[in-house]
């Protein structure tokens, strides 16, 4: 069973609404990733953190998403103004280090923007 916990499993939002999802990484894992998996099952990297600091993010994330990983609280990813094209499975993952260690995924939050 996945030890990366994502909530909610399903999220339905109207266009223009905020959509927020949360992730509790595996215990002791300081590195957290967010990926978007579209309806064609393709993955897109969104952002990663080490502890509370952002390491890398793509342009889309910087402009339209708000993400954080506060200490002692779940990580979160929020779309500021949802668009139809944001409908996807959002996967959170964590790892023990930044190099060549196993990355563990959660089951994802499936966002539908209507």
């Amino acid at each position, binding site marked *: 069973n996945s030890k990366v916990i994502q909530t909610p499993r399903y999220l339905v939002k109207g266009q223009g609404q905020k959509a927020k999802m949360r992730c509790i990484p595996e215990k002791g894992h300081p590195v957290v*990733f967010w*990926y978007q998996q579209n309806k064609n099952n393709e993955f897109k990297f969104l952002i990663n953190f080490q502890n509370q600091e952002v390491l890398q993010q793509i342009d889309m994330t910087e402009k339209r998403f708000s993400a954080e990983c506060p200490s002692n609280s779940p990580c979160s990813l929020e779309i500021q103004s949802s668009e139809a094209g944001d409908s996807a499975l959002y*996967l959170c993952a964590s790892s023990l280090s930044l*190099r060549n260690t196993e990355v563990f995924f959660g089951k994802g939050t499936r966002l539908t923007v209507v």
Partner: protein
Amino acid sequence: GDSVTQTEGLVTLTKGLPVMLNCTYQTTYSPFLFWYVQHLNEAPKLLLKSSTDNKRTEHQGFYATLHKSSSSFHLQKSSVQLSDSALYFCASDSGYNKLTFGKGTVLLVSP
């Protein structure tokens, strides 16, 4: 940037037959390759990983060998089972453990 290519979108097989799912890659740095399996409504899980050239790695009956000369990391199994029906992703480490994924291959095993 890095890229991973999986040529088959869908593979359908009868149980008991062998399977090979293709994966080729282009990486900026020394390659570290992975195979992940994702069952329906489940989290992707690591199946195999390798950074060692020409060394076979095995797990749960699946195996793969990283060949740097041909930039390949094909996934194989000698005899597929019904429970192997799932989505399979090849991925490479693009730095900072960030994964670049292929488009995925759906494996459907019939009785």
